[in-house]
């Protein structure tokens, strides 16, 4: 046991912002009770929004429309490139256009259940309610959703639901929704309401010591290297998840946890970091050079059959392996659901057969997803119509033709449900610091359903953050940030000096290993010891190795180039340094949660069928962690979860 795992238990924490009363009325009630700011006074207030994905772009645009002065930041060269752009499948909304029994109540139910009863009911209910307005808003903006011949919107089904409520734009729904938000943002930029800072990375939060409020951020201009302060009256973080702590993921290369980790170090609690989602159908690693993984839509499992050779080390071409020497293991072990078992089951099963030495492709980390039967049954044309673009993408990456040779797939980290703890207003434990989208922990519990990430990002950004920021500024009557205010200037000076000092420190190590090589090693360690299946033993081992790797990082890191230039090695180094701290907390959270739920699978806690076994008696709470110093045991604050509407049951899709 490491000293780090000797965490303390602090005071319980509770959401005090959600009104009580009937679930159906809570959001209306909250909006009614929220304080307002006179339109004429809004222009005196500055709001910082970090990140320009669905949550960030929609929040910045909407706050700009309301008359606030908004400062928007992204590390990319354009706000349109944030990683929401890569979301494929769709966005859920309880429109019930199909008349198939959908409703706000049902979307709420599906989301709470899909999250394995580890989400806060009032937040989820609000999400389901707002889903209706999101579709209206996006259509008005010109998002080209798929339509029927009659001109009305088309929908499709997704995992974990029995209704057809997923709106989509081919396999590029994220792109189209983000362009809608980006265009609204560009309109506000042109109008002078929003000042855009592209290629600018947030490296610290400014918190004033006397009242503990978030009053700005410190950034580094990625082109010139200039370190600068930006003061504001509220700060909104929309900086995405921390999946890249695993290195090889479906996230973009630049996705990082620095903004939320810096906020955490200032006292914002970080909740449920061990809830990480693994997607079963990604294109496998092809060699040591691999830099990221590409998702293949879950929909492929409707027609593809998953198998591996029965014998270990069988290196024959798949076409030469006769039927009776193949193991269609999902169909064999889960006859009722077959190839359509939930994401976590499919992922673990693939890992198990590969661990047995029956994996296929380079490195033996892959299983076949075979369309031969479907092509024979339905014809190549039908398969082409359903999955043509995906097959094309697969061929482009692997050089193999999936019409004649089965696809090779393997699970990969895709999304993180944990994040900064927020109340119903999406306010963190630092007053004036709001957190939206994947960066917060709020709506998906221990597992996110497909097509719900886009819904949450836009719900938070278009509809929740504006109400919360209004309320915060109205309620506190906070004076506009004054750069000459001595206390604020001192806090900003200190934060700025800290950032400069850290940049210098990264450059000064001058060792012999690149940030990338450390990132790769950290990712491999996390994937092996804290990935699809976690045990007390593996997690304890991880807690032993992470501090050692961190120590080595600060001893052997090599960052070429200087601080005052475009220096991508320096950018990476700072992000990896933060991942090396966050990883330890993620593992500790996984170790402390001695139950399996959603994306967190502890091998010690499973049913005889291998399903996740929750322990509601002991763990029906949100684990919100308080930072106590690097490598120092953190403090656990528990938020007990009350289930009023939904009764926790064993999650079953049988």
């Amino acid at each position, binding site marked *: 046991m490491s000293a780090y795992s000797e965490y303390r238990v602090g005071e319980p924490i509770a959401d005090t912002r959600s009104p009580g009363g009937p679930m159906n009325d809570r959001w209306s009630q909250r909006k009614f009770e929220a304080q307002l700011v006179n339109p004429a006074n809004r222009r005196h207030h500055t709001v910082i929004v970090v990140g320009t994905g669905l949550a960030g772009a929609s929040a910045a645009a909407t706050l700009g429309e309301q008359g606030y002065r908004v400062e928007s930041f992204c590390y990319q060269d354009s706000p349109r490139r944030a990683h929401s752009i890569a979301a494929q499948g769709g966005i859920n909304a309880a429109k019930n256009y199909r008349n198939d029994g959908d409703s706000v109540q049902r979307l709420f139910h599906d989301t709470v259940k899909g999250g394995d009863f580890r989400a806060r009911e009032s937040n989820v209910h609000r999400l389901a309610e707002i889903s209706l307005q999101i579709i209206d*808003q996006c259509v008005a903006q010109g998002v080209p959703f798929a339509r029927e011949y009659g001109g009305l919107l088309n929908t499709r089904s997704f995992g974990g639901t029995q209704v057809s409520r997923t709106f989509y734009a081919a396999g590029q729904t994220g792109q189209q929704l983000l362009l809608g938000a980006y265009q609204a943002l560009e309109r506000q930029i042109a109008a002078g309401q929003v000042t855009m800072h592209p290629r600018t990375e947030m490296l610290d939060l400014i918190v004033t010591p006397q009242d503990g409020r978030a009053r700005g951020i410190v950034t580094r201009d990625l082109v010139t290297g200039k370190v600068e302060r930006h003061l504001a009256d509220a700060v909104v973080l929309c900086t995405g998840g921390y999946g890249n702590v695993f290195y090889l993921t479906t996230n973009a290369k630049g996705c990082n946890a620095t903004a939320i980790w810096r906020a955490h170090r200032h006292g914002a609690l970080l909740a449920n970091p061990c809830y990480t989602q693994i997607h079963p159908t990604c294109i496998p690693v092809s060699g040591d050079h691999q830099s990221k993984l590409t998702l293949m839509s879950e929909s492929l499992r409707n027609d593809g059959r998953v198998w591996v050779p029965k014998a270990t080390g069988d290196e024959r071409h798949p076409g030469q392996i006769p039927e009776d020497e193949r193991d269609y293991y999902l169909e064999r072990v889960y006859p009722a659901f077959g190839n359509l078992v939930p994401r976590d089951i499919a992922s673990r099963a693939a890992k198990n057969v590969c661990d047995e030495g029956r994996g296929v492709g380079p490195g033996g980390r892959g299983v076949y997803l075979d369309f031969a039967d479907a092509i024979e049954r339905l014809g190549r044309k039908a398969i082409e119509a359903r999955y043509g673009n995906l097959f094309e993408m697969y061929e482009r990456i692997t050089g193999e033709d999936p019409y004649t040779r089965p696809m090779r797939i393997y699970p990969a980290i895709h999304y993180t449900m944990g994040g900064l703890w927020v109340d119903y207003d999406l306010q963190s434990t630092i007053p004036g610091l709001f957190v939206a989208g994947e960066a917060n922990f709020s709506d998906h519990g221990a597992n996110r359903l497909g097509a719900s990430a886009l819904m949450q990002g836009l719900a938070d950004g278009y509809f929740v953050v504006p109400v919360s920021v209004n309320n915060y500024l109205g309620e506190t009557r906070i004076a506009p940030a004054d750069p000459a205010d001595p206390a604020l200037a001192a806090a900003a000076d200190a934060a700025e000096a800290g950032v400069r000092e850290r940049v210098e420190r990264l450059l000064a190590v001058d060792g012999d290993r690149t940030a990338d090589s450390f990132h790769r090693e950290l990712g491999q360690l996390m994937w092996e010891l804290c990935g699809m299946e976690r045990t007390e033993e593996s997690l304890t081992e991880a807690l032993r190795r992470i501090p050692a790797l961190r120590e080595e990082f600060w001893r052997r890191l090599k960052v070429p180039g200087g601080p005052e230039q475009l220096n991508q090695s320096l950018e990476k180094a700072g992000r990896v340094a933060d991942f090396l701290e966050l990883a330890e907390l993620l593992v500790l959270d996984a170790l402390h949660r001695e139950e399996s739920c959603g994306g967190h699978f502890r091998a010690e806690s499973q049913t005889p069928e291998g399903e996740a076994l929750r322990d509601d008696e002991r763990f029906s709470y949100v684990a919100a962690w308080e930072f106590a110093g690097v490598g120092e045991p953190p403090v656990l604050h528990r938020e007990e979860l009350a289930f009023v509407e939904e009764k926790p049951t064993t999650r079953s899709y049988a």
Partner: protein
Amino acid sequence: MSDLMELTLRVWRQPGPDADGEMRTYTVADVSPDMSFLEVLDVLNEELAARGEEPVAFDHDCREGICGACSLVINGEPHGPQKRTTACQLHMRHFADGDVIDVEPWRAAAFPVVRDLVVDRGALDRIVGAGGYITAPTGSAPEAHATPVAKDAADEAFTAAACIGCGACVAACPNASAMLFTAAKIKHLNVLPQGRPEAGTRVLDMVAAMDAEDFGGCTNVGACATACPKGIPVDVITEMNRDWLKAAARSRKSGR
């Protein structure tokens, strides 16, 4: 892997916007055909860093062909030799052992080089800001089914909206014109009933914004559409010109 390749890369190195640049030659060994083009640059950069040299700066992010960040001219072609493929999705099986490959940034006056292969494409964002949106402030939207959209219009809008804003069209054009980019955004919005009310001002304002940047004019070469990794059809330019003429005539009449 048995078929590893050794490649010679001639890469544009330029320390800053105002500095002189030059092509510099590097050898990368043990290149697997399964690597993406950007992964070859990763390998080169790790080697450079190990030698204490500064890595080659290049833009990239999603590496799935959708964010539009990557922007390499490979052997004279934006995004390289494979059609409808961004550089991040271009794999080394399209190259052979011993190949000499030139890697350059987008070349256009409107896209000044920031460093090495990184350019500033802010001009594209400014064109969008001039009118590439539908004015629909949050909360003002009617029920989504209030206005049906004919399927063919929705599909056409989607085809045009598939643009990833990478700027390959500009890099491919001998005049460095941004007509395909601008026209695609106009087409996406003007073909939808929701975009109709602002159709005229949109085309006038966006074309004016495009002209205000350092882009060249269009001479109907069509290299833009050939280079486009998302297959945006060249017809959108014709349609934009038609929309522009109509709008210009109307605005002259109304004295706008």
